[in-house]
């Protein structure tokens, strides 16, 4: 067995205390800090969702005012996208990518540090709207013009919201640049692009999409702010359509930005817990790149009912996404085939991801058909669809990542028993919350309404959904309890508790400041530790 020296890069010794935490350019401290920030926003936006579900449990208004409800769904969607899903996906990259490619550092770490601060600043700015006299932004997370202009939405909270989105979007671009630059320039000797771990490839496509899509958001929001302050930017129907084009040019790719890194985590978990390397690596990489390229050309499917786009073109590109998505499913199932499967918590969440995202994905193909979309767009059907992709996909994948890498990041183990409780409560709660929404939408319930007519099937379906959301809240509490328990017991995890396949499992848990102290294992494939294991089995 040959080995190469660990990369020698001079790194500053860590500082302690709050200043040390907030000013560290160690990608691990930075990644963990950004991750924790984003997770806090996940909990906050989750509380907003619970308030909405409480209001909707029965017809009429009980808890909220009409305006309060508008603020809640605006901040729920915005927080989830701008402050939780995008930053947490990139945080996973900031933490894990250098470790997976055998690097000692993140490229341009001070830029990434500034991005963390901007995410915090953007989030606080957005949420400060709640403290203003007219409340927080109330225009929906996509803030369609002219509704978002001064005459309809004069609140200063909406201006705060725009500034918050601008900060968070700029932070995302900076983070994506850092992660991508790290992958391009910091790879260990022997690690060619086609030996990049699967998770790193998913980060590559996510970062490419951030770099191409997020500038459109900055333009849309910058112009919206200018329009609100001085006017003269958007006008007439052209202004309304232009805003939608700009927004969705960002707004569709972002859902894949917050999906792919978690697909990568799921792929790593399935390979690890099947005792097999990921199946069909090259077709998988090609399908990721194809998926990312196609995703830049599907935005008009959000505009099928506007009469302002060529529906058939966007229907074609959107439906074509089933091909790369199908390849990814094939590879996941083929990795399990003839494996030796251990149903540890990360694997449970990964399998849950496969099943739930299948529902989100197939209904996505459904809404890619304009005649079918006419009925269901802007209804609860679409709300159900995208929660199956974002909760069933991204959040299940996020918990896969958390359970998989928790031992690496903290050096301690989470409880498997509590993990199973967390998983099953999430599965039941998730389906109970979101499946009834398909029927509600098909039956004609529009989204973004605080009230609905009593005495119909809508009351029952909404009550079921609200009950499910309580279960989801309980599942998150179980998870937090598991975290607290792990924090107190500090059961040592060791460097490689799962039998990992990539380089991060070849160093201590948590990894030292310079990531790798000894020699790195030779990198001859995308799964170097699996190579060693198979070589050892062959010689035994």
């Amino acid at each position, binding site marked *: 067995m040959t080995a190469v020296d660990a990369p020698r890069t001079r790194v500053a010794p860590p500082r302690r205390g709050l200043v040390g935490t907030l000013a560290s350019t160690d990608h691990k401290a930075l990644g963990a800090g950004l991750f924790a920030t984003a997770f806090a926003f996940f909990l906050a936006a989750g509380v907003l969702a619970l308030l909405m579900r409480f209001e909707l449990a029965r017809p009429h208004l009980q808890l909220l005012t*009409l305006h309060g409800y*508008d603020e809640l769904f605006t901040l729920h969607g915005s927080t989830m996208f701008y402050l939780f899903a995008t930053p947490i996906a990139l945080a996973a990259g900031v933490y894990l990518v250098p470790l997976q490619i055998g690097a000692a550092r993140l490229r341009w770490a001070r830029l990434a540090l500034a991005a963390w601060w901007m995410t915090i600043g953007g989030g606080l700015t957005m949420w400060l709207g709640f403290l203003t006299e007219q409340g927080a932004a109330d225009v929906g997370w996509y803030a369609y013009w*002219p*509704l978002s202009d001064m*005459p*309809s*939405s004069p609140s200063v909270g909406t201006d705060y919201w725009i500034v918050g989105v601008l900060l968070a979007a700029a932070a995302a671009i900076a983070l994506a640049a850092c992660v991508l630059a790290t992958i391009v320039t910091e790879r260990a000797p022997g690690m060619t692009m086609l030996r990049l771990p699967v998770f790193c490839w998913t980060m590559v496509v996510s970062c490419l999409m951030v770099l191409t899509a997020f500038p459109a958001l900055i333009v849309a929001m910058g112009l919206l702010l200018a329009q609100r302050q001085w006017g003269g930017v958007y006008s*007439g*129907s052209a202004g*309304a359509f232009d805003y939608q084009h700009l927004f969705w040019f960002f707004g569709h790719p972002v859902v894949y930005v917050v999906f792919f890194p978690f697909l990568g985590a799921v792929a790593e978990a399935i390979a690890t817990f*099947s*005792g*097999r*390397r990921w*199946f*069909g*690596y*090259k*077709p998988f990489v090609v399908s990721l790149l194809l998926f990312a390229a196609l995703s830049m050309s599907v935005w008009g499917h959000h505009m099928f*009912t*506007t*009469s302002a786009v060529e*529906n058939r073109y966007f*229907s074609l590109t959107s*439906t*074509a996404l*089933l091909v790369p998505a199908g*390849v990814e*499913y*094939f590879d996941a*199932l*083929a990795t*399990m*085939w*003839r*494996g*030796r*499967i*251990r*149903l540890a918590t990360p694997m449970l969440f990964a*399998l849950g991801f*496969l099943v739930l995202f*299948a*529902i989100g994905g*197939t209904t996505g193909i*459904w809404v890619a058909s*304009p*005649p*079918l979309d*006419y*009925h269901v*767009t*802007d209804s609860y059907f679409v709300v159900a669809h995208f929660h199956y992709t974002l909760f069933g996909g991204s959040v299940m994948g996020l918990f896969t990542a958390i359970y998989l890498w928790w031992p690496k990041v903290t050096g301690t183990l989470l409880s498997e028993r509590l993990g199973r409780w967390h998983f099953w409560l999430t599965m039941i709660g998730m389906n109970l919350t979101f499946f009834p929404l398909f029927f509600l939408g098909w039956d*004609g319930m*529009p*989204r*973004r309404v605080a*009230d*609905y*007519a009593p005495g119909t099937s809508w009351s029952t379906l909404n009550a079921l959904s609200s009950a499910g959301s309580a279960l989801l809240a309980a599942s998150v509490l179980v998870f937090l309890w598991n975290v607290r328990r792990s924090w107190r017991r500090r059961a040592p995890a060791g460097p490689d508790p799962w039998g990992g396949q990539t380089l991060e499992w070849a160093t201590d848990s948590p990894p030292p400041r310079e990531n790798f102290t000894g020699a790195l294992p030779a990198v001859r494939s995308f799964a170097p530790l699996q190579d060693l294991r198979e070589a050892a089995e062959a010689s035994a």
Partner: protein
Amino acid sequence: MTDTRHDYDALARLYLPIAAAVVLLVLLLVVAFAWRYRARPAQEGRPSRVSSAPRTEALYVLVLVAVAALLLWRTFTVEARTDRGVTGAGVQVDVTAAKWHWRFEYPRAGIVQRGTDEHPPTLVVPAGRPVDFSLRALDVIHAFWIPERRFKRDATPGYTSRFSLVFPRAGFWRDGGECSEFCGLRHAWMRFHVRVLPPDAFARWVRARRSGAAA
């Protein structure tokens, strides 16, 4: 001119079984593999080392492309039939959306249907005959949605959207029309009723409304 509900539901009957089959297949394979290949203590043999099957995967991609082609072909066929634009031969209804009301004007008959905050207006149309809509908004974007027709179209300020619908069955749909694009505070309550009358009854309604308007 076609019946949108009939056509779109027929299309849904193609998509739904495929979607359901895919989801069930994934569920089945995940559960079957997790059981069949579960790790057992004192297990003989190793996990498979096969990690690619280019030919199988290429064939599978062809199947995926065929499915996508089938769905697109049916979608395009249906859309070409229903999005052919206005017939020009039907009853003309000009729809105006503004926060947070609908207004229906029948320009040839000189009738206007308005509502109040408490009582939404009623869209009255003849059964079985095309209705040519011309839809616009005065302030922000709204969307005209009649779930029973499975049809929705945005109303964008400064833009007039034209489309035709057929209502085959006579009847009354309370709150049968809704605004589905978020348009501000009273969005949830921006509704209208839909009344579909047999053609002779519709003609009588037009006459009565006209003389009522003249009086």
